C-alpha cells in the first residue's frame, strides 16, 4: 500500500495541471480530497453536462439558515480536477475534513456560550453600576465596557498577536507566502516557475512542497496538540485529526495506491501524525447538528479575493486563461485584452499588441522572470495601449481579469436555502403564492399582518414585486391594502438571489445594500424608508452610510436639503421607538452644516415656482430640525437662514417665507419684522417682488395680520399706495395670497377693516383737507370688502 500526498494551492491552475499529470501517472485506486464528508453523495452530479463551474457546494443547517459554509470550485481548481479525474476513470472518491455537522454544532455551542457571557457581563456591569450608584459615583455604562475591553487587551501579548497575524496570512495561502519570499507576486508565479524550470516530474514537485510546508509549520510551532492553542488553532487541529481518521480508515479498507489531495498547509500534519490519543480526544463527543448539502451556481466575481472570500484569488479570469491556454500565451491574453478594449471604444491596433508584448517581456527580464506575469502584462498594457492611464484598465478588470462568468447547475438539483426559507415563511404567515391577483388588507396592529407586510416589503427590495401597495384611505392609517400576484419567473429569480444569502432577511439586506450603491441621493432617502418599513435595520445603516458619503460630495443643495427632513424625522422617531440608529445623528450633523453653507448659492436665480418649492423644503427642514431639539445644529441653521433672509437679490417669495420662519422661531422681534416688511414693501422695490414677498410671508395664514396692527397697517398702506396699473397687475397675486386664509381669519380681517383705524383716520384727515372724493372712494369699498371677505 502506498500513500501519496499532493499539497495543492486552492484555485491554482498551476497545481491543478501538475495534479492532473501526477494522478495520471500514479493511477491510484482511491482519491481522498479535502472537503466535507457530507458532500460525497453530491459529487456524482459533477459529471452532469449541465454542471458548469464556477459552482459551489453549499452546506447549511436547515434549522438555522444563517449557519452555512460554501466550498466554491472553478474549472481550474485542483480539487475539481481531482473529482473529475476520479469520476471519469471510475476511481473511488472520498472527502476528508471535519464533518460540517460538527462544525455547525460547535458554532451553535459557541453562540450559546457567547450569549451567556453577554448576559452575565451585562449583569456584572449593572451590578457594578448599582454599587457605584450607591456610592454616588455613577458613571456612564459606556466607559464600563471600555474599561472591560482595555483590561482584555492588556492581557494580549503583542509578540503573540504579531505571530498570529502572520500565521493567519500564511494559512490563507501558504504557497503565495513562499512566492512572495522568492520575490514573486503570488504563488502562481512561483509554481509556474518551478514547473517551467524543468521540474517535469510533478511528483517530486509535490514532495518539495511537502518538505517546505513541514519546515514552515515546524517554525510556527508544529501541528501537534498544545494546551495553549487558540480557538482557531484548536479548530484546525480538529480538522486535521478528522482527515487523519479518514486516511486511517482508507488504509484499513485495503486500497493499494491512495492519493491524498489537500491544501499544502495540511500535508505535514497528515504525513507525520501526532499521537493517536490526541486525535481521539479532539474528536470525542463533538456536538452535532443537521446538515443539508446542495450545489449552487457561483460567479468568478465571488471567487475573487475582492469579494472577501478567504481563499480567493486576485484574478480568476487570468487563472481561467492560464488553465485554458498556458502561461506562455501572453500574446493570446493581450489579444483578448485588445478585443475587450476595442469593445469599449478604444482604438487598439495589432502594433499595440506587439509593442505591449515586447515591453512585457523586457519588464519580465528586468525582474528576472522567464515569462511575463499578469503584472507585467497589465503594466505593458497601461504604458502602450492606454497611455499610462490605470483607470482604463478597470474597464477590462471585471470583464477579463475577474471575468463575468457565472456557473450553472443542473435544474434537477434540490432547492436552495433561500427558496426553502421563503416557503417556510409563506407557510407560517399563511400567505400562499398564487398566480392570480388577490386583494389583501393588512391591519398593521396585528403581529401576523405586520410580518406579512414586512415580508412583501422585503421581497420588493429583493426585486421580486409580489405585491403592489394599493390605495389606503387617509394618512396615519394602520391598514395596508395590497394587490398580490405571484409570477412563475420569481422562482428563477429566487435562485439567482440565492447567492446573496440563505434567508429572505439576509439575502434582502445583502442584495439591497448592493443595489443601493448605484442610487442617487433622493433615491437613497426613499430606500431608507423602504428599509424601515421592511424592518431591516442593518440595511438602514448601510444605506445611511452610503447617503452620508454621497451627501458629502454632492453639490446639489436642493437634493441635500430634501434629505434633511426625512432624516431628522427618522432620528426623532427612532428615538421614540427606542431603536436608536447612531449613524443618523452623524449624517444630520454633517449634512446640515453643508446645506447651511451652500444654501445661498442654491437659492440664487430661482423662478417663482422653484422659489416656492425651495421655501417649502426649507420650511420642512426647519420644522424637522426644530423637532430634533439639537441646539447647536439649530443655531447654525437659523444663523444661515438669517443671513440668507438679508440677501435682497433672492426671489421675493423665498425672502418673505424666510422672514416668516424667523418670526415664528422668535428670532425676529416685532419691530424687526415690521422693519423688514416695510423695506420689502417700499417703493423702490418692484411691486411684483413685493407681492411675492407678501405671499411668502403670509403663506396660508392671516393670523399674524390680525394680531399685529403694525404689520396690518403696512400692508394696508402698501396696497393703498399702488398705482392703478400696478394694482390691476397685482390683484390676482394678492387675491391668491388672501384666498389661502381660512374663512374665520378672513372674517376677522374683514371686521378689522371695517373698524379700520387707517381708513377712518384717513377720512378724518380728508375732511380736514378736503382732498378725497368721497363718492369715488366709497364705490371702491364694497369691492375691497368683498375681496377681503371672499
Amino acid at each position: 500500500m502506498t500513500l501519496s500526498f499532493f499539497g495543492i494551492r486552492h484555485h491554482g491552475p498551476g497545481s491543478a495541471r501538475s495534479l492532473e499529470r501526477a494522478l495520471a501517472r500514479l493511477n491510484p485506486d482511491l482519491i481522498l480530497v479535502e472537503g466535507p464528508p457530507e458532500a460525497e453523495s453530491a459529487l456524482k452530479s459533477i459529471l452532469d453536462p449541465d454542471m458548469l463551474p464556477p459552482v459551489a457546494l453549499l452546506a447549511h443547517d436547515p434549522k438555522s439558515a444563517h449557519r452555512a459554509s460554501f466550498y466554491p470550485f472553478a474549472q481550474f481548481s485542483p480539487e475539481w480536477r481531482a473529482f473529475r479525474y476520479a469520476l471519469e476513470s471510475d476511481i473511488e472518491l472520498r472527502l476528508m475534513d471535519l464533518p460540517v455537522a460538527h462544525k455547525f454544532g460547535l458554532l451553535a455551542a459557541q453562540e450559546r456560550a457567547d450569549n451567556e457571557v453577554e448576559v452575565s457581563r451585562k449583569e456584572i456591569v449593572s451590578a457594578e453600576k448599582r454599587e457605584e450608584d450607591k456610592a454616588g459615583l455613577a458613571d456612564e455604562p459606556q466607559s464600563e465596557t471600555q474599561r472591560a475591553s482595555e483590561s482584555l487587551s492588556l492581557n494580549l501579548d503583542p509578540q503573540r498577536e504579531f505571530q498570529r497575524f502572520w500565521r493567519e496570512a500564511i494559512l490563507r495561502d501558504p504557497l503565495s507566502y513562499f512566492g512572495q519570499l522568492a520575490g514573486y507576486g503570488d504563488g502562481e508565479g512561483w509554481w509556474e516557475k518551478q514547473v517551467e524550470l524543468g521540474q517535469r516530474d510533478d511528483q517530486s514537485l509535490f514532495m518539495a512542497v511537502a518538505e517546505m510546508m513541514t519546515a514552515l509549520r515546524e517554525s510556527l510551532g508544529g501541528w501537534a496538540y498544545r494546551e495553549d492553542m487558540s480557538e482557531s488553532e484548536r479548530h484546525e487541529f480538529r480538522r486535521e485529526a478528522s482527515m487523519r481518521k479518514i486516511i486511517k480508515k482508507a488504509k484499513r479498507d485495503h486500497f493499494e495506491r491512495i492519493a491524498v489531495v489537500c491544501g499544502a498547509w495540511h500535508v505535514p500534519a497528515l504525513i507525520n501524525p501526532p499521537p493517536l490519543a490526541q486525535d481521539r480526544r479532539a474528536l470525542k463527543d463533538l456536538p452535532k447538528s443537521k446538515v443539508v448539502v446542495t450545489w449552487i451556481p457561483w460567479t468568478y466575481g465571488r471567487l475573487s479575493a475582492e469579494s472577501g472570500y478567504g481563499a480567493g484569488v486576485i484574478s480568476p479570469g487570468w487563472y481561467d486563461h492560464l488553465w485554458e491556454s498556458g502561461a506562455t500565451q501572453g500574446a493570446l491574453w493581450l489579444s483578448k485584452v485588445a478585443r475587450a478594449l476595442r469593445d469599449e471604444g478604444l482604438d487598439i491596433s495589432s502594433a499595440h499588441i506587439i509593442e505591449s508584448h515586447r515591453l512585457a517581456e523586457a519588464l519580465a527580464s528586468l525582474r528576472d522572470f522567464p515569462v511575463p506575469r499578469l503584472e507585467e502584462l497589465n503594466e505593458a498594457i497601461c504604458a502602450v495601449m492606454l497611455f499610462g492611464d490605470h483607470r482604463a484598465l478597470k474597464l477590462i478588470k471585471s470583464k477579463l481579469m475577474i471575468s463575468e462568468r457565472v456557473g450553472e447547475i443542473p435544474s434537477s438539483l434540490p432547492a436552495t436555502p433561500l427558496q426553502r426559507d421563503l416557503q417556510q415563511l409563506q407557510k407560517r404567515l399563511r400567505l400562499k403564492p398564487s398566480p392570480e391577483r388577490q386583494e389583501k388588507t393588512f391591519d398593521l396592529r396585528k403581529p401576523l399582518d405586520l410580518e406579512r407586510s414586512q415580508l412583501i416589503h422585503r421581497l420588493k427590495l429583493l426585486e421580486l414585486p409580489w405585491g403592489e401597495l394599493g390605495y389606503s384611505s387617509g394618512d396615519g392609517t394602520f391598514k395596508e391594502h395590497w394587490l398580490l400576484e405571484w409570477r412563475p419567473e420569481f422562482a428563477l429569480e429566487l435562485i439567482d438571489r440565492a447567492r446573496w444569502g440563505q434567508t429572505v432577511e439576509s439575502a434582502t439586506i445583502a442584495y439591497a445594500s448592493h443595489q443601493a450603491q448605484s442610487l442617487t441621493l433622493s433615491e437613497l432617502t426613499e430606500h431608507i424608508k423602504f428599509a424601515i418599513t421592511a424592518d431591516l435595520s442593518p440595511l438602514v445603516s448601510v444605506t445611511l452610510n452610503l447617503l452620508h458619503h454621497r451627501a458629502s460630495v454632492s453639490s446639489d443643495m436642493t437634493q441635500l436639503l430634501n434629505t434633511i427632513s426625512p432624516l431628522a424625522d427618522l432620528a426623532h422617531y427612532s428615538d421614540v421607538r427606542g431603536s436608536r440608529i447612531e449613524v443618523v445623528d452623524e449624517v444630520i450633523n454633517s449634512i446640515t452644516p453643508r446645506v447651511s453653507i451652500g444654501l445661498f448659492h442654491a437659492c440664487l436665480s430661482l423662478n417663482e415656482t422653484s422659489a416656492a418649492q425651495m421655501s417649502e423644503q426649507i420650511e420642512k427642514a426647519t420644522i424637522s430640525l426644530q423637532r430634533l431639539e439639537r441646539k447647536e445644529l439649530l443655531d447654525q441653521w437659523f444663523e444661515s437662514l438669517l443671513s440668507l433672509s438679508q440677501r435682497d437679490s433672492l426671489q421675493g417669495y423665498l425672502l418673505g417665507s424666510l422672514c416668516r420662519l424667523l418670526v415664528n422661531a422668535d428670532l425676529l422681534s416685532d419691530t424687526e419684522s415690521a422693519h423688514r416688511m416695510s423695506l420689502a414693501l417700499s417703493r423702490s422695490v418692484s411691486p411684483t417682488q413685493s407681492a411675492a414677498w407678501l405671499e411668502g410671508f403670509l403663506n396660508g395664514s392671516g393670523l399674524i395680520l390680525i394680531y399685529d396692527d403694525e404689520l396690518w397697517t403696512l400692508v394696508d398702506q402698501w396696497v393703498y399706495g399702488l398705482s392703478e396699473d400696478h394694482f390691476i397687475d397685482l390683484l390676482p397675486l394678492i387675491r391668491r395670497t388672501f384666498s389661502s386664509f381660512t374663512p374665520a381669519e378672513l372674517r376677522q380681517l374683514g371686521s378689522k377693516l371695517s373698524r379700520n383705524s387707517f381708513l377712518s383716520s384717513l377720512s378724518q384727515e380728508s375732511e380736514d383737507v378736503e382732498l378725497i372724493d368721497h363718492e369715488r372712494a366709497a364705490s371702491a369699498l364694497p369691492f375691497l370688502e368683498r375681496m377681503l371677505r371672499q
Partner: protein
Amino acid sequence: MVKHSASKSLETDQILRAHAELEFSAELTVLEAYDQRQRPPHWRLSPWAVKTYLLGGTLEDGTKISPKYIGNHRLIEIAIATLATDRALLLYGVPGTAKSWVSEHLAAAISGDSTLLIQGTAGTSEESIRYGWNYAELLAKGPSDRAIVPSPMMKAMSEGRIARVEELTRIPADVQDTLITILSEKMMPIPELGSEVQAMRGFNIIATANNRDKGVNELSSALKRRFNTVILPVPSTIEEEVSIVESRAAKLGRALELPAERPTLEEVRRVVTVFRELREGKTLDGKIKLKTPSGTLSPAEAISVVNSGLSLAGHFGDGVLNAHDIASGLLGAIIKDPVQDSIVMREYLETVVKEREGWMDLYRACREVI
C-alpha cells in the same frame, strides 16, 4: 524646477543647482564598478543598476545609494524597460510629480549625460529639434557638414545617448511631428546635403508632459503610438509623501538659507494630510467624503507651503513653524477658484478640521484668513 545650463568651468558649489551626473557622480562611479550585468549598447549602466540608482539601495561593499525617486518602483521599472526596447518614453503627470526629476536622473544614469535637453515651449521651432545653420559659414561656403549647427537631438542620435524633451505638449503640433521620423526610422534626413544622420544604438527619447493642461497641443495619435506612457502619480501613502516633503523642504530651506529651524514633522504631516484629504476627496480614515478643489495639490505645492511657512516663521515669527505660518500658504495653494474652492475649503474646515483633536489652532488660523 530650474533648468540651468551651467558652464563646466564654474565651481560646483557655486552653482545653484548641479546636474544629476555631477551631483551624484560618486554613486554612479561605484555602481559602474560593481555592475556585472549585461549592458545594452552605449549604456553606462545595466538596467538593474539604473534601477538601483533611481530607487536607492545598498551595494555589496556597503555603499549606500540614495533613492532619487520615492514611490512605486514598478513605474521606474517600466520606464527603464521601455528605454531598453526601442520605444520612446513619455512621462506624464500632474505638475509637481517629479517628471523632469526622473527624466534627468534616467538620462544621467543611462548615458551619463542629462544635458541633451530640448525645452518645449509654444515657440519651439523645427530647428531646435533637427538642426540649425551657421549662416556665416553657409553664406561663405554653401551648405556643408561644417555649416550645420546640430540640435541636442541630433547629438544624441549620433552619439547613441538619451535626448530629453521637456513639456512635449507645449510644442506646436507640426513641430512635434518632426519626432515621428526620428522615432520610427531612427534617422534624421538632411535634404540640403542629400545625407542623413542615423541614430546609434543607445539612442532614445524621454519626453515629459503635463496632463493637467489638456488640449494645449494634444499629441497626434501617430506620435502617441510611438511612446510608452508612464504616469507618475501623486504619492500613494501619507508616509511616502511626508518623507518627500520633509526631505525636499529641508534641502531647499538650506539652499535658500532660511533662518527658521527645520520644519517639525508634525506640521509637515498636517500640511500633507490636508493636501491628501482634499485631493482624494475623503478623510484619511475613509469615514468622511469631501469635495475636491480645482487645484492639483501636488507634493511640490506642499513643499512650497512648508517653505513659505518656514520663511514666515523665520522672518516674522518666532522661528518655529506653527499653524499661523502655514495657514495663508495653505489657503493660497488650495483656493484657486475664489468661489468654488472657498466653499470646498470652508466645508472642510467646518466638518473636518474643527472636529479633529489638536487641530483647533489650524482651524482658528484658517478662519482668520478665509
